[in-house]
């Protein structure tokens, strides 16, 4: 199977926060949104949106990290915390605010749970979809083509 992407159907999000709390619990063992790699935010015209790493290709964050702390493993952009010095260069170029401080400058970002994202499994409203790009078009009727293109680095 080819590369899968995590797509957000923002119209379906109800801000139930299941993804957010599941993420912080699975990753850091706490129920605390600042420890989640996914965020539900209000965005201007649409009521809600979900912010998380798009695993860009090429990945701006990995390109500017001088400490080799951001690696691309099979298309997944991973932050290696032990190598990160919190210089925050990556945060200055991420278009999506996907790298955040979980406290004391320990930076976190989504790593797709090693290829089986927990947030997708718990979303009761089918607002998070993890599929190969080709499938997205029929999983999301009238799927916003632009959004999908952006996810794939414009291809």
């Amino acid at each position, binding site marked *: 199977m080819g590369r899968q992407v995590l797509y957000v159907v923002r119209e379906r999000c109800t801000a139930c926060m299941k993804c957010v709390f599941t993420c912080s619990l699975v990753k850091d063992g706490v129920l605390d949104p600042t420890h989640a790699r996914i*965020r539900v*935010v*209000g*965005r*201007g015209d649409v009521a809600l*949106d979900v*912010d998380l790493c798009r695993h860009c290709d090429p990945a*701006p964050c990995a*390109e*500017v*990290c*001088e*400490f080799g702390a951001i690696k691309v493993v099979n298309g997944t952009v991973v932050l290696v915390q*032990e*190598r990160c*010095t*919190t*210089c*925050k*260069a*990556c*945060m*200055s*170029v*991420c*278009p*999506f*605010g996907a790298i955040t*401080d979980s*406290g*004391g*400058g*320990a930076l976190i970002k989504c790593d797709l749970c090693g290829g089986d994202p927990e947030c997708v499994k718990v979303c009761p409203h089918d607002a998070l979809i993890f599929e190969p790009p080709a499938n997205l078009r029929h999983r999301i009727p009238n799927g916003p083509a632009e959004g999908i293109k952006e996810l794939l680095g414009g291809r």
Partner: protein
Amino acid sequence: MRVVVIGCGVGGVEAVRNLVAAGVGEVKAVCGEWPPYTRHRLSEILRDGLPPTTASITLEPELLTKAEFVKGFATELRLGRKEVVLDSGEVLSYDSLIIATGGLPFIPPIKGAGLRNALPFYGMSSLKYLQSLPKGLRIVVVGAGLVGLTVASSLMSRGHRVAVFEALNHVLPSVMDEEPAKAVTAHLRDTGVKVFLKSRVEEVMGSSKVEAVRTSSMVWGSDVVVYAAGVKPRISLVEGLGLEMVGKAVRITQLGETSLSGVYALGDAAISYDYVTGKPVYRPLGFIAAHYARLIAEALAGKGVRDRGVIPTIYERVGGLDVIRVGLSASEAEGLGLTVDLRCSKGPAWVECFVREAGRTLVGYELVRSDPTKRNKGYEVVREVKEVYQ
């Protein structure tokens, strides 16, 4: 080949890591402070009340077995004999030397600067001291750069009464242009931080400990003074040894070598190169130290590397604001001899500026936002600048 690295801050450790990865002979690092730590998260650790050890740099087991970290201070360089003398009397011989001694905080040369309760925010001891203070003190921060503003907001959230004094006419003078900087000042004032611009502190007053600071127009009561007035290269070890300097910083080539063959320097001790103009600059930033650490290791490993310099990629959280600058600000670009055009726009919760050279190439971007949904376009500078100037 025997390589000795002097200093184990982010630059020194990163040099060791790259040298080990490249398989460059025998690597020894002289560490004036132990364990190594990163300054980059000191303000966040202060803000969140976490133990100072949170700043430690992880040294993976492989590094500890393949390189030797010598705890001690280098007190003398014998360049002719290729030796480093330590405070313990131990002498290390090298074939190549890397000077990674970092910087020292600049303390303004004013009356009372050395009084008790007046200190720079720079390393472990200042973090521990500020964490030990009881709530509710009056604290003056001297200097409104990134360090000054982040420490001011951290002290504010720890329950102190904080005033920032800046000699120039806007905050973040070496980071942002005036318009986005104004948004930062407004936000700080909203959160209760007093910000005084065009206010140079001329004296720290008090008999045995700090009681107030004085500018040309006022006296401001204070229990603690925190200096955040910039960094200067820490170069006492090489002074008088004939190394070429640019101002007070060690001159290096584009690949990190000093004017003496086999002697390299990086980080806050040395200059670096600006990517857009190719000119030497002094930018004491951690990712720049790491950039040259990698280049020097590659050069010592015999890899034919080429390098143009660094595009600044700066992010800080100041209170509830994201402060972002990628590439050059208009004022820095002009200082480097470019003719630029600065265009800023504003939304309810953000200010964004684009700096273009000759009306075309995007050479800089500045964003101040409290709204996380405002898209950050910083990466466009990296992409465009690399395409045009490569």
